[in-house]
């Protein structure tokens, strides 16, 4: 783990890039030429120490996950690590009754969040952007769930879903034995019950992102569109929404990552038992459950990693391309 970072420190303070001194680059170059050896050492440490910590705990472990996915290990001593090639993956894909449901649930999680709370958040943001009175109060109401821990949200919603004491069953009279609707235990219902709680939180988050996006819309666009006689919907569809493109990208990335990271709510509800399996839950069960199958758990983590990379890489490429231009 240190090799990666030690190579970074000497590199961290290299001589200014040789040649190709376009006028544009000259300023920072001259800037850097003034650095004393001590300054370079300071800079190396300033960037090096945080990098060591970040790389050691995040990247080394991520790569270790990939390596361990091709082994079996009971976690006791390093000599019990055995190379098994793709066996873990084979078993996972063909022989684990929880794996494909988990993949499916992660996908459902994403689709549900993008179809319901995202447009709802956008809608609320558009309404709140109309310079109305009490806007702050309304915003706070919608945003409050985002501030709270997902674990706390899980407990709050259990008070609503609980089969015999919960709000819903008490209201509809389904809290008598024999008439139970088991929102948390029924495999056909529990995922949807949890998704309602997740959407409740996600809407406020989306609303804030869109509100920020709407604040950035050039007011003259709205004015021009009003002068052209466009109605509210036409203005939104043809003028405002297209300018929200950067926000939409962020919203999409945030929602995919939230769907992949989903964990706390499900764990609090029913620990990912029947009907609510998620990839994150399967990985965690291999650590805190009674069976410690490290290679196998890592294989699930690698699947999760591969899915995330499909999102992370294009996102980073576009973000950093913009930065280089800037």
């Amino acid at each position: 783990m240190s090799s990666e970072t030690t190579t970074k420190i000497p590199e961290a303070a290299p001589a200014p890039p040789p040649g190709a001194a376009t006028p544009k680059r000259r300023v920072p170059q001259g800037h850097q030429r003034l650095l004393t050896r001590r300054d370079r050492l300071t800079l190396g440490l300033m960037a090096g120490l945080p990098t060591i910590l970040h790389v050691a705990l995040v990247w080394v472990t991520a790569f270790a996950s990939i390596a361990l996915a091709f082994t079996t290990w009971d976690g006791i001593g390093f000599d019990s690590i055995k190379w098994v090639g793709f066996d873990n993956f084979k078993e996972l894909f063909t022989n684990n009754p929880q794996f494909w449901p988990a993949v499916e649930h992660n996908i459902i999680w994403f689709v549900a969040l993008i179809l319901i709370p995202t447009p709802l958040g956008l809608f609320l943001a558009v309404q709140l952007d109309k310079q109305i009175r009490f806007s702050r109060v309304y915003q706070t109401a919608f945003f409050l769930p985002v501030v709270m821990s997902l674990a706390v949200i899980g407990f709050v919603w259990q008070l609503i879903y609980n089969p015999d004491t919960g709000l819903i069953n008490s209201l509809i009279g389904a809290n008598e034995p024999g008439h139970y609707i088991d929102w948390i235990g029924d495999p056909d219902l529990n995922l949807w019950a949890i998704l309602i709680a997740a959407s409740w939180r996600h809407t406020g988050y989306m609303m804030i992102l869109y509100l920020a996006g709407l604040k950035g819309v050039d007011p003259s666009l709205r004015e021009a569109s009003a002068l052209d006689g466009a109605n509210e919907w036409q203005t939104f569809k043809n003028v405002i929404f297209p300018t929200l493109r950067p926000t939409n990208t962020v919203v999409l990335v945030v929602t995919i990552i939230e769907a992949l990271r989903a964990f706390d709510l499900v764990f609090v509800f029913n620990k990912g038992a029947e009907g609510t399996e998620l990839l994150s839950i399967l990985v965690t069960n291999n650590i805190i459950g009674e069976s410690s199958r490290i290679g196998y758990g890592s294989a699930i983590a690698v699947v999760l990693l591969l899915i995330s990379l499909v999102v992370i890489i294009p996102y980073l490429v576009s973000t950093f391309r913009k930065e280089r231009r800037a």
Partner: protein
Amino acid sequence: MSTTVTAKVRTPVRPARILLHLFLAGTSLAWLAPLLWALYSAMRPYAETSEKGYVSWPDKLTLDNFTNAFTQSDMGHYFVNTMLIAVPAVLVTLFLSSMVAFYVSRFDFRINLALLLVFTAGNLLPQQVIITPLYRLYLLIDLPGITMSGKLYDSALGLVLIHIAFQSGFCAFVLANYMRSLPHELTEAALVDGASVWRMYWQIVLPLCRPAMAALGTLLSIWIYNDFFWALVLISTGENMPITSALNNLSGQYFTDNNLVAAGALLTAIPTLIVYFLLQRQFVSGLTLGANKG
């Protein structure tokens, strides 16, 4: 501009405005309903609800459940645990990530882009991708006498470190963008005057970053306070748990007494609500400052 628009549409829009307010007020109330229901449940005595059911008119509303939840489950102790984790984690994350951001944004080294990419991408990974090796690593690292458990595992220090490592990715990215927007002449002049790099960072750049740091600090406090996952896996002793995972234990112990669990959950949420109401502006600007956050 807005005057022309509103002037133009003011008269015909009036009833629409009232309708909008009715809609927003109704939706807001519906949005708060789960929390209000929790509050109502928490304020009723267990004996009364077990006799009359939860959906019933109250004979008596009390705060007893809150005091009971607080004392019976030793919540004060868990609040302290959380503070011991969150305060150093937030401060050190801001400190370390501002140094990285300074490095990549104020100089033109060739590895800058790669370095920033490493930090940003690291923060986008799902936590479960790194947890298995991290858990093993924490069990391997012996710290006799430094932590209660003698290891990095099951210690506040371990949680502080992973919070710093994970969140610094996000903060470095946001702060680098922020620092890039500061005029280059500021640091150039200082450098020509012979100021050291450290002085440039500490006395010129950092003070100018105060708004961004405040926003990130608020956001980090809430995120780290709310953490459930890291503590769940990396802490095994109930005593050492932060408040959110301790709540999980509380509900296991008192699972029949929903009133108590409701009170416990609301008590757990209070600090974040206070932070939010006091620092609303910072919090929201932090979120959108780093809208790229996953």
